[in-house]
């Protein structure tokens, strides 16, 4: 893993995001906290609808203006609270401060602009000449592993394969040398063989630039090979977080245990795949207390109380879980 600087460049404290659902505002991200240092990779894990994409969009101030709002918490970037800043302030931070790679590269690339233009767009907006922008775009495309990069500058997104498109997306995001890169399911839309290449590429580039990487994913396997830290989200809350090794080897929250148990293993003869019973809850009427309660195998009376995220293990600050039973039953 890359050199890790002890001071976080991006720190999220108690972030709360609400979405408008027909009438009421529904809390989709509830008191989420995490941090990422330069050169460090944080994986935000969770199933669909756990609030991880909303969290990612909030980091860039890209939540839909009319239907979503940040109602609480701080997003500290270099000690400055982004959540409190103006639209102009966001424009300054986006791209150069925090960059983003989206899930589906085909829909995230402008179909009406050549790839070369899109890669150099941000640079040219910041004063680079057309000629220099072209050269920079060719260099970036080559860096992300696009063969014959110079010859492909004038091609359009539909002329690239899925993996190549995602490489283009990464080149665009890296063009402005962001300090933190948010990658929202960067490999989900790709073939398994291409997934590994893209993750490799992201890690190589991270090592080279020393940026912080926030990897939003639902794939525990992909994360296992890449992340330094993980934060597991369920129903808008972080239910467990800590160093990758601690969380994977010694999961404290029943949900994390369920997720890890559900990974199919090659070593053992496949029996029936382990699953977590039930379905993720509806945000509009979450169960009182622990929202994992209806699906939990060790549910008890006190689970009606919302469990706090408490430290477990020897280094109490690093590995934390939000479960009343955490740290007690080793199982």
């Amino acid at each position, binding site marked *: 893993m890359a050199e890790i600087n002890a001071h976080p460049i991006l720190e999220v404290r108690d972030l709360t995001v609400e979405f408008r659902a027909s009438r009421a505002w529904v809390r989709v991200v509830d008191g989420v906290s995490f941090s990422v240092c330069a050169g460090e990779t944080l994986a935000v894990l969770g199933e669909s609808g756990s609030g991880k994409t909303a969290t990612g969009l909030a980091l860039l101030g890209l939540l*839909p203006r*009319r239907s979503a709002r940040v109602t609480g918490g701080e997003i500290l970037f270099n000690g400055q609270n982004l959540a409190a800043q103006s639209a102009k302030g966001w*424009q300054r931070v*986006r791209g150069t401060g925090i960059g983003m790679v*989206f899930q589906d590269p085909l829909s995230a*690339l*402008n*179909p009406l602009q050549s790839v070369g233009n899109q890669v150099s*767009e941000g640079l040219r*907006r910041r004063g680079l000449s057309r000629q220099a922008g072209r050269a920079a775009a060719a260099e970036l495309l080559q860096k992300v592993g696009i063969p014959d990069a110079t010859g492909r500058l004038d091609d359009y997104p539909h002329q690239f394969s899925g993996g190549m498109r995602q490489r283009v997306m990464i080149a665009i995001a890296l063009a402005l040398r962001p300090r933190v890169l948010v990658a929202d399911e960067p490999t989900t839309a790709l073939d398994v063989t291409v997934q590994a290449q893209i993750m490799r590429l992201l890690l190589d580039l991270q090592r080279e630039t020393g940026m912080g990487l926030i990897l939003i994913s639902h794939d525990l396997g992909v994360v296992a090979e890449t992340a330094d830290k993980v934060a597991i989200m369920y129903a808008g809350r972080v239910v467990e977080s800590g160093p990758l090794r601690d969380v994977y080897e010694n999961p404290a929250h029943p949900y994390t245990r369920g997720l890890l148990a559900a990974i199919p293993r090659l070593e053992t003869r496949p029996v029936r795949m382990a699953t977590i019973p039930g379905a993720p809850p509806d945000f509009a009427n979450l169960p009182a207390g622990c929202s994992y309660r209806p699906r939990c195998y060790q549910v008890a009376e006190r689970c009606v109380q919302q469990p706090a995220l408490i430290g477990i293990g020897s280094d109490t600050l690093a590995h934390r879980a939000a479960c009343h039973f955490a740290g007690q039953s080793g199982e």
Partner: protein
Amino acid sequence: MFLQPRIVIPLLILVAYVLIGIFGPMLRPFDAISVDIENRLLPPLSVTTIGAFALFGTDQIGRDLFTEVLQGARISIEVGFATLAIAGVIGVSVGVAAGYFGGWLDAVLMRIADIQLAFPAILLAIYIASIFGNGVANVILVLTIANWVGFARVMRGQTLATLPREFVQATKALGASDWHVIRHCILPACVAPLIVIATVELGAMIVAEASLSFLGLGTPAASPSWGLTIANGRDYLSTAWWISTLPGVALGILVIAVGVLGDELRDALDPNLRRE
């Protein structure tokens, strides 16, 4: 894709009308508005007393009808394209602004558009003609006021459809300003529907100009447009059919060509409708 007869033929007709509108009146030695009582109501293909050949015949006061039709083409094209340009710029600006910024701006602009739609264009034309008098510029003003809404609605819809697409978010994620997003993401996506609505509106505006002139609310007698010539020939329909008919045919061919062009362009520009 664009080199098929369904597009090329109406396009050539439109280009021919534009060229006729620009150069046509120069080709004819006659003054379109001079009176020549000796040669009134000559049928098409006649020869006048001064030995000139009147292809379309002459009207009730002896003017060469062919010259009038050429002159009318100039006015129709002029009014059509000028209105298209002005109403288009206003409509696109209003539509994109309303769709992009939303909120109270959207509400205000679109309510103005609704009020505009509820107000009859003919009534507006009468007001403007009575205040400013007849004239080509006033016709353009009336038609602009009556037609910008069409552009605004389509552009607002297209903006709303483009805005949630991920590449717009991706562009914003690079720190792009609103203006940059509008210029590089929204407007390029608006081009195809804009071309289609422009051709539809062009035909409608040419007909509207002819209607206003027919009713005497359009161009003055000194610059005869097709509508005015048609109106003049109305009293002679039983004896001199050509006065009303020939400018009507000229108008009809132009409007049909523009309409067909619009339809075919829509099919060619929309991948979902593309015929193999």
